[in-house]
Structure formats: structure tokens, C-alpha cells
């Protein structure tokens, strides 16, 4: 382990030294070539987009265009994202129903009536355009529907095999799904919520477990690049909100007593604990939201940063090191997909368990 690590460090140092020499020679030859911007590439991947970009062939982008749905002051406007012709700099103007739209850094702006092209201030914000309400089917929404379909396909097929088989023996895909469901029941729901009440929460726990897991896995498939759904803070916020609402509504008398009037401590301490516990109600779902978002986004950024080393050094020699490291991180990320789904589910179950715990003396 230490020897191989040392070897990797040695090689990467050597390679980077070589590639600097190579870079210096090349730079004089073609100065016209655009400089590679790693930050822009990574942010473009991590953020949501209006089209599903798959690959570039001979500098021509191949992508699935998705519908754009806008609510403007003059009503609903819809068109396909292909009308922008892959332009993301705000130069290509699309005219619909007498209104002009441009796309700038994956945001859609509506130009003012008298303007024909977008003008920028010093910080590169448009000055003569406003942003309409954007309800487009972006690539994250598209991937969410795909993952919903895949989940439905898996579970409906699994449910059918139980009907066909004799004595409820799982066959086919059910043989793969059943151990996972039993794992969620016996390792997550039962110990965290308790033997008597866990059944009510099983559908929710199973749903978030499989939904988060499959979206994490979809985020790692290279050909679907940009499907960074579980690394989107709006997505994790909605999931955390569900947990928050279920916890709040299933809280019993004992739960609220522990928040507003902590039993077993003196009165000044009760008064001191009340605001802390009140804040605690909200920080729990917020930390669920941030944890999933930051873990998945950080994983994507690390993999892409390692891959973009090749283009930063503009050398083939750096490629083996970079590919090896990013493969290593990808393998770790595959484990992380399952761990994050597990953590989100077990913490939700823990909060439900706290909310429904009976008083004991």
C-alpha cells in the first residue's frame, strides 16, 4: 500500500514535470486555442441544465432537447431547448409570441421590449432583461422521471413474481429486492422506531431509501452526465421536508413535552432548554438536506477535477495517473451512494422513533 502510494506520487511528479515541458513547447505553436477552464466545466456538470447534453462529436454537440416552459407577464410560453442551438452565452435570441428570450449560464432571460440583444454590466449580469418564472422540464426533472420509471419497473415486476410463485418464494428480480427490503425493516425501522409502530413508517422509509439510492447511482453513470439529481439542493430539501412534516405530525405528547418543558430538570434549565430544543426541530431536517447534497456534489467535483487534470496539463502522460485516481474515487463513490441512502433513511427513522416514543419511568 505505502509502496504503491509512493510510486504513484513519484510518477505523478515526474509526469507533471514532463508535461510542463511539453506544454511550454505547444503554447508557442497554437496560441489561438481556447484555454481549458476546469471550474466552468465542473460547474456546468454539477448544475441543472435545459438540455440533455450527451457527447461532442467533431465539436458538434449531440444532445436531447427538452421542453422549456415559461410563465411570463403575457402568459405561458413553451418551446424546445433546441431553438437556442446549444448557445449558453446569451447571444442567440429566440422569438416566441412577440417576446424575445436568451439563455445565459442555464438561466432564461426575457429581453425588454425595445432591446434586440442582451447588454451586460461590469459583473456580467444582463441589464436589459428580466427572468420569467421557469417551470421547464430540465435534465434533473427528466432524470427524476426516468428513475421513477425504473423503480416502478423493478418493484412491479418483483411484486408480480410473488403472485406467480408458490409459497411466496422470491424468484427473479424479487430475489434481489427482498433482502434489501428486509434489511430496511430489520436494521433500520425496527430498532429505531420500535416493534409496535414501525409498520406505519415502512412505506415512506422504503421509498426514500430506494429513490435516493437509484438517483445516486444514476449520477455516477458517465453517459448520463449531468444527472446530478441528488446533488441538487432543491431535491434534497423536498425529501428533508417530507421527513420534517411526518416527524412533526406524528409527534406525541411525550415528544412535545421534551421540547417545551423538559421533564426531570430544574425550572431555570427547562427555560434554557426550550429555545435550544425548538431550534433542534428545524436543524435536523436542514442537516439531512445539506448532508446528502454536499456529499454527492463533493463526489462529483472530485471525480471531475481529477479528470480535468489531463486537460489542464494538456498531456497524455498525466492521463494514466488521473484515470487511476478517478477510478479509485468512483469506486468509493459507489459505496457512498448506498451509505448516503442508508444514513438518510436511518436518521429519518430515528427522528420518527423520537417523535413516537412513549413515556417510561
Amino acid at each position: 500500500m505505502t509502496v504503491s502510494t509512493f510510486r504513484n506520487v513519484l510518477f505523478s511528479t515526474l509526469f507533471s514535470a514532463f508535461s510542463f515541458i511539453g506544454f511550454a513547447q505547444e503554447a508557442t505553436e497554437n496560441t489561438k486555442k481556447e484555454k481549458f477552464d476546469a471550474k466552468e466545466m465542473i460547474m456546468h456538470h454539477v448544475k441543472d441544465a435545459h438540455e440533455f447534453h450527451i457527447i461532442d462529436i467533431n465539436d458538434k454537440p449531440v444532445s436531447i432537447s427538452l421542453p422549456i416552459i415559461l410563465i411570463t407577464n403575457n402568459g405561458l410560453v413553451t418551446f424546445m431547448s433546441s431553438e437556442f442551438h446549444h448557445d449558453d452565452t446569451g447571444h442567440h435570441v429566440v422569438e416566441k409570441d412577440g417576446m424575445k428570450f436568451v439563455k445565459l449560464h442555464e438561466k432564461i432571460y426575457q429581453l425588454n421590449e425595445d432591446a434586440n440583444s442582451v447588454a451586460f454590466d461590469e459583473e456580467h449580469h444582463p441589464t436589459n432583461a428580466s427572468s420569467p418564472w421557469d417551470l421547464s422540464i430540465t435534465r434533473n426533472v427528466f432524470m427524476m422521471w426516468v428513475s421513477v420509471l425504473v423503480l416502478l419497473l423493478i418493484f412491479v415486476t418483483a411484486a408480480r413474481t410473488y403472485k406467480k410463485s408458490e409459497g411466496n418464494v422470491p424468484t427473479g428480480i424479487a430475489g434481489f429486492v427482498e433482502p434489501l427490503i428486509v434489511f430496511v425493516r430489520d436494521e433500520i425501522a425496527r430498532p429505531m422506531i420500535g416493534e409496535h409502530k414501525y409498520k406505519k413508517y415502512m412505506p415512506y422509509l422504503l421509498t426514500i431509501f430506494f429513490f435516493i439510492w437509484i438517483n445516486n447511482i444514476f449520477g455516477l453513470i458517465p453517459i448520463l452526465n449531468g444527472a446530478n439529481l441528488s446533488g441538487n439542493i432543491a431535491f434534497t430539501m423536498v425529501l428533508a421536508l417530507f421527513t420534517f412534516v411526518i416527524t412533526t405530525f406524528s409527534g406525541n405528547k411525550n415528544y412535545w413535552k421534551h421540547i417545551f418543558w423538559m421533564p426531570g430538570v430544574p425550572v431555570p434549565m427547562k427555560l434554557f432548554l426550550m429555545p435550544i430544543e425548538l431550534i433542534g426541530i428545524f436543524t435536523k431536517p436542514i442537516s439531512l438536506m445539506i448532508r446528502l447534497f454536499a456529499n454527492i456534489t463533493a463526489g462529483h467535483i472530485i471525480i471531475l477535477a481529477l479528470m480535468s487534470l489531463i486537460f489542464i496539463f494538456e498531456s497524455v502522460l498525466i492521463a494514466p495517473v488521473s484515470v487511476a485516481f478517478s477510478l479509485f474515487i468512483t469506486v468509493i463513490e459507489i459505496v457512498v451512494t448506498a451509505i448516503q441512502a442508508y444514513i438518510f433513511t436511518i436518521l429519518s427513522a430515528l427522528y420518527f422513533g423520537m417523535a413516537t416514543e412513549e413515556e417510561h419511568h
Partner: protein
Amino acid sequence: MTITGIAAIGAGLAAIGAGIGIGKIGGSAMEAMARQPEMHGKIQTSALILAAFVEAVALFGVVVALLQG
């Protein structure tokens, strides 16, 4: 030093804190598992949950750094 540099230092400090925290949890969990192999499953579950709590604080730091940087 620019604000991006300071943000990077902040993210690094958050990582140090999380490293110490998760290291202590992992070390103690391993020790406990060696002492009581029959409690292996329970110890592992609680160690993972605790690691998630420690990590969350570090990730707050990372997110703040990302917003700044």
C-alpha cells in the same frame, strides 16, 4: 489573499475537524468490536450514524466555502 483563498483555508480547517472526529469514532468502534465481537452489528450502526453527524458539521463548512469561492 483573496476571499477564495480564505474560503479554501476554511474548507481545509473543516476537513481537519471532521478528520479528528471520525478518526476517534472509528478508533473507538474498532476497539469496542475487538473487545465484544458479538456486538459487531450494533456498534457498526451507531458508529456510522455518529460519523454522519460529525461529517454534517464539516460539510456545512464546505458548503460555506463553496458559496464564497
